[in-house]
């Protein structure tokens, strides 16, 4: 995949704190720190995978980047333009270039509209003129995503889950966007259909030169489609690296635990005893643990982890980790851990 030096999307210290209010006067008593200062770049033509467990803020990140939510801090820069607090009116033309694929193909399509209306809507909203009319353009896109163009006048309920997801993808592609944020694009689908949609996303990327940010909880799907992967935990990025490095030599203990928790479809594999099992659940983002947020579940945690927050540091080329005691770390041992302990 070709990547140029200028990032298509650049996110800096992005924050979203949802206020928690109480009483008649809606006094703010706290905040859910859904996303708490994350930074990453997405380059043209690449796929960035965003993984984490529920509540880690990955979906919120997707919605912040597309400005479906207003960030409470930080910056989102798209093609060199700061869109963090841009007004809806100014954003509208940008929406052509930045689209979203949603998780649930059942609730993200209006049941009262035909496929033609759904996929054609972007043309009408953006006032885009097409050479042979909107209908022709829509039918071309339907063909592109593997649907029958004759189904133009059908309603969403007449389609299966996989086909509905294809309709969602067709709508996303209608105006040839540059960046697509896909929030759990395949998790609602059956295994065999999941593979079809994953292949479709890859084909479309090659054909249309798309850039993806894929948000998912399934580590194997993310490995399959991503070039680079960011692992999130409680509103923070704990590790970001290219796919190969992250899966073959993960440095953050959480990434290690996540990878080792995935059930392997091989009956012989279950005999292995060296798997890492985390205890307990993810703490509430309303009141996240101080300093390193993973210390409550981490088997390597020491006193420093409870007091000093580890910065996201580049320990190998393109491999950034936020941990005091990273695994698989290249020699010499990281300076911060040695200096502060």
């Amino acid at each position, binding site marked *: 995949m070709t990547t140029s030096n200028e990032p298509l999307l650049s996110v800096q210290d992005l924050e979203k704190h949802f206020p928690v209010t109480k009483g008649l006067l809606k006094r703010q008593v706290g905040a859910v720190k859904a996303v708490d200062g994350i930074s990453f770049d997405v380059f043209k033509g690449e796929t960035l995978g965003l993984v984490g467990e529920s509540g880690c803020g990955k979906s919120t990140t997707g919605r912040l980047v597309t400005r479906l939510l207003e960030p409470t801090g930080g910056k989102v820069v798209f093609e060199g333009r700061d869109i963090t607090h841009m007004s809806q009116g100014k954003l509208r033309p940008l929406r052509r270039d930045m689209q979203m694929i949603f998780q649930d193909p059942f609730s993200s399509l209006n049941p009262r509209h035909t496929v033609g209306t759904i996929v054609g809507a972007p043309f009408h909203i953006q006032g885009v003129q097409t050479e042979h009319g909107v209908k022709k353009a829509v039918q071309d896109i339907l063909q592109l995503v593997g649907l029958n163009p004759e189904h133009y006048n059908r309603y969403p309920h007449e389609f299966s889950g996989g086909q509905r997801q294809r309709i969602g993808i067709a709508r996303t592609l209608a105006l040839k966007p540059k960046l697509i944020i896909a929030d759990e694009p395949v998790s609602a689908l059956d295994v065999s259909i999941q593979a079809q949609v994953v292949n479709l996303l890859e084909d479309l990327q090659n054909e249309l030169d798309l850039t993806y940010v894929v948000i998912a909880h399934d580590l194997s799907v993310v490995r399959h489609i991503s070039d680079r992967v960011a692992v999130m935990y409680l509103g923070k990025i704990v590790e970001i690296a290219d796919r190969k490095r992250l899966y073959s030599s993960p440095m953050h203990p959480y990434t290690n635990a996540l990878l080792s928790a995935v059930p392997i479809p091989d*009956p012989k594999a279950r005999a292995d005893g060296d798997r890492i099992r985390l205890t307990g*659940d993810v703490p509430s983002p309303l009141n996240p643990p101080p300093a390193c947020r993973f210390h409550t579940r981490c088997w390597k945690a020491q006193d420093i982890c409870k007091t000093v927050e580890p910065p996201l540091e580049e320990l190998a080329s393109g491999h950034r980790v936020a941990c005091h005691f990273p695994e698989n770390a290249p020699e010499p041992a990281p300076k911060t851990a040695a200096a502060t302990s």
Partner: protein
Amino acid sequence: MSESPFLDVKDLKIHFSTDDGVVKSVDGLSFSLERGKTLGIVGESGSGKSVTSLGILGLHRGKSANVSGEIWLDGEDLVTASQEHVRRLRGRKMAMIFQDPLSSMHPFYSVGDQIIEAYRIHHKVSKSVARKHAIDMLGRVGIPEPKRRVDSYPHEFSGGMRQRAMIAMALSCDPELLIADEPTTALDVTVQAQILDLMRDLQREFNSALIIITHDLGVVAELSNDILVMYAGKCIEYGSAEDIFYRPEHPYTWGLLGSMPRLDREPTERLLPVKGTPPSLINVPSGCAFHPRCPYSDQTDGQSKAEIPALINTDPGHLVRCHLSRTQRRTLWENEVKPVLETQ
């Protein structure tokens, strides 16, 4: 085996009459299971796996459901037994773990009360004894501070803890048959790993027969001794976990294996999905229900469209429902499918 197996399902059919026609959710399913063993049932949505589990528990007694065949549990036929009798067995002899613990627990009653109620229906004991038992069970499934947590409500639990409470409830009467329907689908991967470990340990401890229903081949591989692959209400392949993962013979099983991105192998360029979509259960394709999606259906001399293939023994304990001959299947697997899957 001379003795009859603990659970023996013979030619089970569960049909529903609807306005559009008869939905043959389960159509002639047979399998058996011993105590202490685990059977994994895999299939896509609509293949009839959940309907089977509800059928075994006798929960399809409505007017629209038509259950036929035989379900022998420890020498008793559940299909012909009275509803009252099956109700008494349910909970005590057989129990179920549902997919979504939030919607299958009562939000108004505390977790403890729900376990106590289930226990007292089957055991004539006082409330305080049952409460002690509930606390005991919650501790067994790994809920911290069970004495305090017994009075919590389901919404106060996290997803993983709710699923643990659900397992505690299912195990409270020491059932001999436990059916888990997608027990970890709603959970995060680290919590899923905890629950799978827990289920494996508890099964060893209680020596119960376990049926685990899932679409995730990874989960089945972790737990099952035997695996049953369902497609359109029928068993299309049955065998030991090793048979299904190392020597699968049905093209649909190959398709499932090829659809999965795997973490334990080098990443492939492309996944190999099964083409097309699962069939409607009202208009099941003629002949082999899988033939419209099967890449090898043209190698059966037109049989695949005309005739429903029989479930035949290919090896001892390994059954396949396919028109391709044994040699054809083995050659295809060795020469075409396996090399592609293994380079993944």
